[in-house]
């Protein structure tokens, strides 16, 4: 049998690889974000009544299809915005805690690096972009998302005519096989930006309102720019009630929840 040495010199290869990595670190490139905006949402849990007006508004604004009873029962319902209910206490002293949950627009989003095609990526303004046309439907982002706020089009969505006439022309109608999620109503952000630019002025606080915030009767949802220290969002984010969902995972979410002041400690409100 063959007895000669294998001169595939592992030492040499290791050296070469080390050299490459060293060279590489000199050219590692992070695109410096000059983002003037850092869009964020504040959810005041004290104000939320769980009325789900935001859910309906979101469906209407963003062309989110309803999948029908059967599919919804399977767990394929799509609500970019949902109001999670958690129950506290024993009957009859039960209290329901509502938490509106939608895409947290994390700064260190787990959904972004796992997407093989950049369909899920970080935008210059710090949003978690979802590019439908680039999505090939690996659903990896949905698995990686700790908040379960990503939704998949298992079938082509269908609108019974003439309901299709109420589809929002500023928002894509997604087709089968792509992921979708809350965009912070990016179409509204874009429209406001274009208008502001046409008027040759800067965006000011309150120019942009996502559909959910706009429709929230008790004004539990506040949207704005976290980089603007004068904005309402910045003010509320500084509250000592401010917390973030699953903060311990290090995802740096840009949705700030204001905890209920009165409970959580078992005291009557």
């Amino acid at each position, binding site marked *: 049998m063959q007895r000669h040495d294998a001169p595939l010199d592992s030492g040499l290869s290791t050296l070469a690889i080390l050299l490459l990595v060293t060279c590489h670190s000199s*050219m590692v490139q992070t695109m410096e974000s000059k983002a003037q905006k850092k869009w964020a949402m504040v959810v005041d849990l004290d104000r939320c009544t769980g009325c789900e007006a935001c859910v309906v508004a979101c469906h209407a604004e963003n062309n989110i299809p309803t999948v029908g009873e059967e599919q919804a029962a399977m767990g394929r319902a799509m609500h970019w915005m949902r109001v999670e209910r958690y129950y506290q206490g024993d009957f009859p002293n039960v209290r329901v805690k509502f938490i509106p949950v939608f895409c947290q627009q994390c700064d260190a989003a787990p959904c972004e690096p796992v997407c093989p095609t950049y369909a899920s*990526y*970080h935008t210059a303004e710090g949003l978690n972009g979802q590019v439908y046309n680039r999505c090939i439907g690996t659903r990896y982002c949905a698995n990686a998302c700790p908040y379960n706020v990503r939704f998949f089009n298992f079938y082509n969505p269908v609108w019974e005519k003439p309901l299709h006439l109420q589809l929002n022309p500023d928002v894509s109608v997604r087709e089968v096989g792509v992921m979708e999620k809350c965009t912070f109503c990016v179409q509204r952000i874009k429209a406001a930006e274009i208008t502001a630019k046409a008027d040759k002025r800067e965006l000011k606080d309150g120019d942009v309102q996502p559909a959910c915030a706009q429709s929230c009767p008790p004004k539990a949802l506040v949207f704005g720019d976290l980089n603007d220290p004068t904005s309402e969002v910045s003010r509320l984010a500084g509250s000592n009630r401010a917390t973030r969902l699953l903060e311990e995972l290090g995802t740096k979410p840009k949705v700030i929840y204001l905890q209920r002041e009165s409970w959580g400690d078992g005291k009557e409100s």
Partner: protein
Amino acid sequence: MQAVYGLYSDPSRAQRAFDSLRAAGVEEHGIAVVSSVPWEEYEFARRDRRTPMAWLAALGGLLGGVSGYLLAGLTQKAYPIPTGGMAINVPWTNGIITYELTMLGAILVTLITLLISAHIPDWTPRVYDPAVADGCILVGVVNPRHDSRVEIERSLREAGADSIKEANVTNRWRI
């Protein structure tokens, strides 16, 4: 092309034929040997053992690694996608691509080196005998000098050949 060869069922006889051919003045590289098994312990099969294949494989690995590095690193730099401050060109993950392409480079270069240096595929006329498939070893001379022919045949026979054949290697090789 003319060839004279003997078929040997026993490798030590083939070795003897090989030795006596050399003694008869045939150059070592002029002796054709064909066998169905790599008789590596015998000298007749130990020709042409030196090959830079392993070094070439290492080189191929290096080449593959560099191309992997360029693919993962430079292309992302050439096609920058705005990622809002997130790194798009990451050494650790690029290292994985570099690693895989290093291995691929080594594999491909080994393969190519094998094909080229072992003359595969080869459809040109060569000396061959189907009896090799039955375990015979073919030892012979291609295009012998006319005057040495008799001596070659004698050497082959005396080494204990099962049969001595003269062949005209003109047919298109085996297909």
